[in-house]
């Protein structure tokens, strides 16, 4: 017979089983939701992540546990790497690479901006000199990829190299992507002269349908030859883009751009949030990761702009160095920032389209960097 009395009942309440860590993590989740709704910080990701953090920290419910809803989703979608790859397919289907195809050399800006990743990697290892930090090479690599300013890439790499840090890394990646309008402009102004920022760039040439169809194959081919470890990311990105550009599979392109990416985004966010547990997140590591993330964005931006200045020289002033800042990706925010800063000095200077080149190049660049880290560190 069911035991009378309120004891078992009280034992089943949240209050009786409360722990500080969980309360604080719910606060963190609420903060992320606040940033998403009120400050428009990447709401598509930070809102589900924040809510996932709240749900998975509810005492007794075990929603984030192996038997819970979010645990199931994490196991199926993130441990396997399926979700970030499907998002990458959607990104490919949503991205028009015309600007990049018209200005192939802007790929070098996307390359330079990845400098932020590798400097951050060293920074993360250097943190080990501070007592309390003990990042392995794998941890440092996963943290460094924040500098790629590309959410799915960061989640994909972190899930392979440092699952324990996944929550903090994803939160840092998306938070700083949302902060691009704050982080980049000062650096851009600091490193460029008024004259350089004033440069107007010539209009982009027309890109043919055939070029757009061949482009994904060119990217994939190089990936196959040089860096198979980047193939899952590059492969799904180019597949999505081919669905878009082929023009013969409208139904599938539409599904990749809408149903699939929307559904996966909800589940990805909730599952990432379920990794925001007190014992994993409320650590010194997280502070280090937040600091390193900001650092990574700054270095990446600076490196992109410097490469922009070099191109400015080489091309005899045809290139506006500002567009180098878009090389960190953070599509399309970084490109918009470039356009905004450009307009400050020259009210007739619209750099948006020119910035889209390095912007999407940055996506490929950080996927390549992720491939390198997987190949050299993942094996260890």
């Amino acid at each position, binding site marked *: *017979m*069911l035991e*009378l009395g309120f004891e078992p009942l009280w034992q089943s309440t949240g209050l009786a089983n409360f722990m*500080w860590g969980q309360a604080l993590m719910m606060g963190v989740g609420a*903060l992320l939701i606040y940033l998403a709704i009120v400050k428009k*910080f990447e709401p598509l990701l930070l809102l589900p992540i924040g809510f996932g953090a709240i749900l998975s920290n509810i005492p007794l419910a075990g929603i984030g546990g192996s038997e819970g809803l979010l645990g199931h989703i994490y196991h199926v979608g993130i441990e396997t790497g399926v979700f970030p790859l499907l998002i990458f397919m959607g990104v490919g289907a949503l991205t028009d690479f015309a600007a990049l195809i018209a200005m192939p050399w802007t790929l070098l800006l996307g390359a330079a901006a990845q400098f932020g990743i590798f400097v951050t990697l060293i920074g993360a290892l250097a943190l080990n000199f501070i007592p309390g930090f003990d990042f392995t090479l794998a941890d440092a690599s996963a943290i460094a990829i924040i500098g790629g300013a590309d959410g799915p890439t960061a989640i994909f790499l972190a899930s392979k190299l440092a699952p324990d840090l996944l929550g903090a890394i994803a939160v840092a990646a998306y938070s700083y992507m949302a*902060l691009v309008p704050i982080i980049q402009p000062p650096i851009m102004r600091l490193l460029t002269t008024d004259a350089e920022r004033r440069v107007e760039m010539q209009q982009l040439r027309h890109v043919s349908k055939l070029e757009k169809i061949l482009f994904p194959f060119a990217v994939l081919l190089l990936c196959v030859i040089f860096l198979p470890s980047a193939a899952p990311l590059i492969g799904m990105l180019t597949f999505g883009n081919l669905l878009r550009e082929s023009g013969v599979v409208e139904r599938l392109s539409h599904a990749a751009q809408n149903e699939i990416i929307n559904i996966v985004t909800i589940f990805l966010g909730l599952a990432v949030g379920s990794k925001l547990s007190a014992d994993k997140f409320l650590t010194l590591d997280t502070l280090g990761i*937040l600091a390193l993330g900001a650092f990574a964005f700054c270095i990446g931006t600076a490196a992109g702009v410097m490469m922009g200045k070099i191109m400015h020289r080489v091309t005899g002033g045809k290139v506006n160095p500002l567009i180098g800042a878009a090389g960190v990706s953070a599509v399309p925010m970084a490109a918009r920032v470039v356009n905004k800063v450009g307009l400050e000095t020259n009210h007739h200077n619209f750099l948006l389209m020119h910035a889209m080149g390095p912007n999407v190049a940055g996506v490929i660049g950080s996927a390549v960097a992720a491939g390198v880290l997987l190949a050299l560190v993942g094996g260890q």
Partner: protein
Amino acid sequence: MPIEDLLLSGINLMLIGMGIVFVFLFVLVLAMKGMSRLALAVTERQGVAETLSSHASVSGQGQTGMRGDLVAVISAAIKQYRSIHH
């Protein structure tokens, strides 16, 4: 177990169950009244209201503030947590 005991358990369940349902929803009534009052106050101060209604892309001002908040709050949380556990 014998049906009588089952029934007793059932009655027990009913008492506890309806009790919780009522307590839960009654407290929720209070919570909602408080919430509405809060919302009204906030809305009057326009603070959040504007941000909410403004569909303009994030204003730098607001965000520098925010970013401070973000790091600040999380740091605070971590300090407090660690102070408890270590």
